[in-house]
């Protein structure tokens, strides 16, 4: 079981992130009662009563054990601010974020891999140029800027899409960004593999360039994808957060942003640990996919 050790280490990492996030939030000045107090003109006595009701008067250790104990039993507790179950709020937000991330990743992979593959198969056409354009695009243009420009052009001037609540533009913005990160390194790797002897024998056998790229070259280039996957995932998480806030999507990013602004610690700590778990699981999946695709590491 070569996967057991990395899985265990990653799970320990997730646990440590839970502790870290918990401590980080307790260091932030002000709590949910202060926020509610400013909004609702609560008296000093009312604020104190509310703190006791929410369990915020207990020490950090007690609060932490309460959270961990509940989480392990499947209960993430109530939102301090909205008095709703945290699991319910996450359950509502999670599909939005997963949809955005999955579509963006799918588009990015499809676009990046196909452009790089066609460019490798037809080095004389416009495709290598497209690889370079994608690469420059993703390095030089932050998704925040591209998203705003997209709002201006497609929502305001052309009026094709609503400003808020649509998912098409965030998916395009993040997907093209991911494609740019993939296409260039993959193209370099593909060109290198194409120059190796076993490709020459495949060509001598009479295989066409398309079949060679699909059957012999791409599986061997899977290592490049798993090498850039960590970077892409980190960018995808941060990008999804920004896009959700920018386009007013009700996902985990918007939830986390509101929880920070409202000092809603029970929501925030569960969301952040979920994010960390998501990145960890995705990294393991990328590793697994690499093992399955690349004959040399199988």
């Amino acid at each position: 079981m070569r996967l057991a050790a990395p899985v265990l280490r990653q799970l320990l990492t997730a646990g440590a992130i839970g502790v870290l996030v918990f401590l980080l939030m307790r260091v932030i000045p002000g709590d949910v009662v202060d926020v509610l107090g400013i909004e609702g003109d609560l008296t000093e006595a009312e604020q104190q009563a509310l703190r006791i009701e929410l369990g915020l008067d207990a020490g950090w250790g007690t609060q932490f054990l309460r959270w961990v104990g509940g989480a392990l039993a499947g209960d993430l507790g109530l939102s301090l601010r909205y008095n709703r179950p945290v699991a319910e709020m996450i359950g509502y937000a999670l599909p939005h974020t997963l949809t955005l991330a999955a579509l963006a990743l799918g588009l990015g992979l499809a676009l990046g891999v196909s452009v790089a593959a066609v460019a490798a198969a037809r080095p004389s056409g416009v495709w290598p140029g497209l690889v370079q354009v994608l690469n420059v695009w993703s390095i030089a243009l932050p998704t925040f800027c591209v998203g705003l420009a997209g709002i201006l052009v497609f929502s305001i001037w052309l009026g094709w899409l609503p400003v808020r609540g649509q998912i098409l533009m965030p998916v395009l913005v993040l997907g093209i960004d991911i494609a740019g990160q993939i296409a260039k390194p993959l193209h370099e790797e593909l060109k290198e593999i194409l120059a190796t002897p076993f490709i020459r024998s495949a060509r001598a056998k009479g295989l066409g360039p398309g079949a060679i790229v699909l059957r012999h070259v791409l599986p061997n280039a899977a290592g490049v994808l798993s090498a850039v996957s960590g970077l892409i995932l980190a960018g995808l998480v941060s990008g999804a957060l920004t896009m959700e806030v920018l386009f007013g999507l009700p996902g985990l990013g918007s939830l986390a942003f509101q929880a920070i602004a409202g000092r809603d610690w029970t929501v925030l700590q569960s969301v952040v640990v979920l994010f960390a778990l998501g990145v960890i699981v995705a990294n393991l999946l990328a590793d697994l996919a690499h093992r399955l695709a690349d004959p040399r590491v199988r």
Partner: protein
Amino acid sequence: MPEAPLSGWRLADSLDGPASAPVSPWRVPLLLLGAVALLALLGPLIAPQDPLWQDLAARNVSPRPGAWLGTDNLGRDVLSRLLAGARITVLVASGATALALAVGAALGLTALAAGALPASLVFGVIDLIRALPSVLLGLALMVALGTGVGPVTIAIGLSFAPTFAVVARQAWLRERAAAYVEAAVASGTHPAVILRRHIAPNVAGALITQAAIILPRAVTTESVLSFLGLGVSPETPTWGRMIAAGLPFVERAPHAVLAPVIALSVLTLLLALAGDRIRAAADPLRMGTR
């Protein structure tokens, strides 16, 4: 078939292509960046208006002579606000990058120098922090530290510091294993001399390269934070806040949003181009190949 470069890929490869012009164009982004820095520095002197002065009779006015970039929803001059915002952006982004480099490198190198146990402890914590989404970390730090130029700089600086520690460790480990360091050790050179003469210059090169990568990201992060209302104080004009304030009125006054968006895109583009040239210049493997 041309040999594919083995060690990474750079933006310049994409821009120049194999048959690049004989005149090195790499000064252009640097010159333009110098111009931006100068504009940011001289902003208050050359701005046509006080960036905070409101002319409520002339709200959302389109660009025209006298108000070259128009006015925003409170009748404030967009050009003057853009210049004032440039100042904040340049200040915060360069300050944050310098802070991240100093904190990350100091932490990482001290831990490495102190031995295996402190190093594994410090880098364990750093790896944890790196597993958190950087936007969330920046947001949390921002809330913890409060608003203002200083706190924003510190929040962005601290959230990027771990990447510098990791880069310092990579460079350190690479140099420690290098044959010439081994030779220096074998010939009895004092460890402090090896550190100063052989390892430090190469680690510094890696850190500067990383700073060139981080600087445009710091610019974007500053804008995102102030767009979210968490940047410097609400009265101070910043690009992110100009965008946030202009969006509700964008149909009547697109210029009030367009101006900061274009300014932000151009600045990050220039920084990416210039940073790429710096990386090429700092990379000893590629020196003289171009």
